[in-house]
């Protein structure tokens, strides 16, 4: 095990929990969408930290691919959420 893995893994756990908390307690929808993204980034960080195997070694490519998939899923969800939020505001005026 390496200290680097540990540092980023724990940071990932903190980000995950921090995002989850904000997503649950914030009123503003935009803030909640940001929070979900931060939370996801925390898990991605843990994944990439698992893959890291030292300065000289090539890292494990599998978690990298998973995170790449995760990033695209996250941006899709964000885009849909923002579109719904915009539609909500328009529906207000009707």
């Amino acid at each position: 095990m390496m200290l680097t893995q540990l540092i980023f893994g724990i940071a990932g756990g903190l980000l995950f929990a921090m995002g989850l908390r904000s997503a649950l307690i914030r009123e503003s929808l935009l803030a909640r969408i940001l929070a979900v993204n931060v939370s996801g980034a925390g898990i991605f960080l843990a994944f990439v930290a698992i893959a890291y195997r030292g300065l000289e070694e090539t890292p494990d490519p599998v978690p990298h691919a998973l995170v790449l998939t995760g990033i695209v899923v996250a941006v899709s969800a964000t885009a849909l959420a923002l579109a719904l939020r915009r539609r909500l505001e328009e529906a207000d005026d009707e």
Partner: protein
Amino acid sequence: MEITLWHLLDSLLAILLLGLAWSALSGTDLKRGVVLFMAFGLLLSLIWARLRAPDLALAEAAIGAGLSGALLLLALRDREKSENKAGQPMSLLRLATVLLMLLLAASFALAYVTAVTSNTGGRLAGLAFGNLEQSGVSNPVTAVLLNFRAYDTLLELAVLLAATLGILALGSERRPFRRPGVLLGALVTWISPLLVIVAGYLLWTGAHAPGGAFQAGALLAAAIVMLRLGGMTSEQLPHPLLQGWLLASGIAAFMLAGYLATFHDLAFLQYPAGWAGLLILLIESAAMLSIALSLGLAYLGGSPSGWDERSSRGKRS
């Protein structure tokens, strides 16, 4: 376990990242939150580079920070009813949520540390590198994405399609921007073609070096964002019927390539020997176009002009 200068750098990066996240999430000023979130994304992309994940660094900079940022900045224009509420519960409750949060983080960290210390093996890395030669590409991440775990990527394109169709079903696009001044106009005309070239380069190079369909698609989408900022209207996009084909092309290419093998008595998504490299390039090209248009339409914020008329005969031939 000795402590080196690298660990100091790592700690610094981690603390900076946590600080950025905290200030992006805790303030009540949404604009500030969005800008800090974009900085968070850029720092994350630096950390990916530090952790030797250049493919992710590219993707994060282009998608995580870049396109998400562009979408969020645009969303700041929409008013929100709850926006002005403080959004912070009473102090006692707040303390409780902080404690819960720490508990969650601590249990995650506990399991993580136990897991990483007890399993120091390479996990799937050995298998992935062992089969790299048969995968048709030499960039291991591309091999995982487009060959070993191609099914994930196929479903991921479906996720992107679902989100895009959801956005298109919600109503029509945002109003286009005004024509820009001379300077921004110049930037748009210079940068957009460059983005297209770099996207092509990333797609090609993804087979053996960092890059690939997702990064390339994000760059193409960035070109759409730039053009949009330069006052592009959705009439200047391809014809709506063609847009449908472009959106479908990534998944369609994947499915065709997947079933091609089944006629040779192979498993779904198994590429015939010697064909893997070519098929992966074809799938990636189609996927890049789908991704670019999906993300571009997400930036437009709704259905482009002529989209809904596709279902009725005659109009806008």
